[in-house]
């Protein structure tokens, strides 16, 4: 399987679709809209990379996820804020102990999961915010090994949790009850099928496959559920100092990766999706919400392969 880079969304700046100081987490909702958590804001982009909506969070946001009912959960320091689809705050869960630093959020059929990097664990709550159990804590090192400072995980269609354990160079599979089912991954410094460095992979997404990102050097990789490497996604546009690059995948298999230094979202399409997007070096041109890829930008949905004019800065967006 091959991927090609087709778009770059966001970038560093103060325009509505740009990020001032941080880009922490990505998520894709059921309608294929991309949500990005950065600074103290949630930004929602359509599939073409045009910003549709943004709203503020009360604290710097570290993670974002969209529930099946469209509610948007924002992970922060010592709390989770819950918004409706329009960005209106509907609830806040606060916990000084269990939600010290919420770097990932996910959902199982009747529960909410929060990755707490300070506690090096995934916290399992019911839908009303009542704590049920820890995940990833019952081991000789009392939690995930995350010297990179992020606990990240994703939930597959069967409700199995796939959690990055970078210090062990693995992606581990857990049941919501906390039972460890197994893992994929091993350390290797040169074989791309392995995970290199002190601590990789740092971030994970799951759809039809397992998608991970690594730091030093920054890249994304695609594995099947047995742990066989299927693709390596690299780009000269990734800043070499990137780490904790959030990854999200939509229903078509389009992969979104956050460059945490350039504060941009790189978009990669699988080759079997079609399209004529350019491959290779990409210049980061400051545009609100969309950065041009070379001289051509592509719209992914409905206009695959058709070149369109660069998107102009959005105006009058609701905050």
């Amino acid at each position: 399987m091959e991927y090609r880079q087709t778009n770059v969304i966001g970038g560093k700046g103060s325009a509505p679709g740009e990020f001032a100081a941080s880009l922490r987490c990505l998520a894709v909702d059921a309608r294929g809209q991309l949500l990005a958590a950065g600074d103290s804001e949630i930004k929602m982009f359509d599939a073409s990379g045009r910003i549709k909506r943004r709203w503020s969070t009360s604290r710097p946001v570290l993670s974002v996820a969209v529930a099946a009912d469209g509610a948007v959960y924002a992970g922060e320091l010592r709390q989770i804020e819950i918004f409706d689809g329009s960005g209106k705050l509907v609830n806040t869960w606060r916990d000084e102990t269990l939600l010290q630093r919420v770097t990932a959020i996910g959902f199982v059929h009747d529960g909410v999961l929060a990755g707490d990097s300070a506690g090096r664990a995934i916290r399992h709550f019911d839908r009303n915010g009542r704590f049920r159990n820890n995940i990833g804590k019952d081991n000789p090192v009392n939690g995930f090994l995350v010297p990179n400072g992020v606990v990240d995980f994703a939930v597959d269609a069967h409700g199995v949790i796939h959690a990055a354990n970078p210090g062990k160079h693995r992606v581990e599979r857990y049941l919501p009850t906390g039972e460890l089912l197994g893992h994929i991954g091993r350390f290797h410094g040169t074989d791309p099928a392995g995970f290199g460095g002190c601590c990789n992979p740092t971030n994970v997404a799951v759809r039809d496959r397992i998608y991970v990102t690594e730091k030093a050097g920054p890249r994304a990789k695609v594995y099947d559920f047995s742990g066989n490497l299927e693709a390596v996604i690299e780009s000269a546009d990734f800043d070499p100092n990137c780490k904790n690059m959030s990854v999200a995948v939509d229903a078509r298999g389009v992969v979104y990766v956050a460059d945490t230094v350039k504060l941009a979202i790189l978009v990669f399409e699988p080759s079997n999706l079609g399209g004529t997007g350019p491959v290779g070096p990409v210049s980061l041109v400051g545009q609100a919400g969309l950065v041009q890829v070379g001289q051509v930008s592509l719209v992914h949905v409905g206009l695959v392969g058709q070149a369109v004019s660069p998107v102009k800065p959005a105006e009058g967006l609701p905050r």
Partner: protein
Amino acid sequence: MSEPITRRDLLHQVARGSVLATLGGGAIFLVQKAHGQVVWQVDASRCINSRLGDTGGEACKLCTTECVVALSAVRAVNEYSRCGRCNICPAYFNITSAVDERGLPSEKLCPRDAITRKPIGKADPEDPANNFYEYVIDEEKCDGCGKCVMKCKEPLGLGSIVLRVRYDKCVGCNRCAISRACPKEALIQIPVEQALKPPEVRQAAE
């Protein structure tokens, strides 16, 4: 009502102030120097081996080759408060060497074998990844080559290993030979009080 200040007066005042400040600063420096109150130290934010941004290059070895002391007075120090205690430490292992039967890199990084490690708590014989490890730098072996510093730097590591001038080794040259050679002016003079201050710097000897 006072006379308005002319541009010439203003320039005179600025110039006079600059001269006085320079003389004053120089005087303070000389007094401190006379009392042995300034010392050379490595500024980690300038040092090529530790400053953020330079990745993938070879380590700068000027601290090893330029120091007038036989085995350089600059040594690598692990600041434990920042160390991740990783199973696979890129400063300890040559992480691109072949992987052995335990799943670990087969070669160490330090050419002088100056870094040792031991598991914290009870080691898991089935799975070495199930442990934290303490990494200790033997400063009697270290020559400050900076290889481990370069590999420990973010984003590959956590930047816990830095180069430090060891005052019991440094002979306190008036003009440090390393500072003359350092392309980044990373060797700086600081007051003794400041040099002794950072509590987070836990020396390996502790």
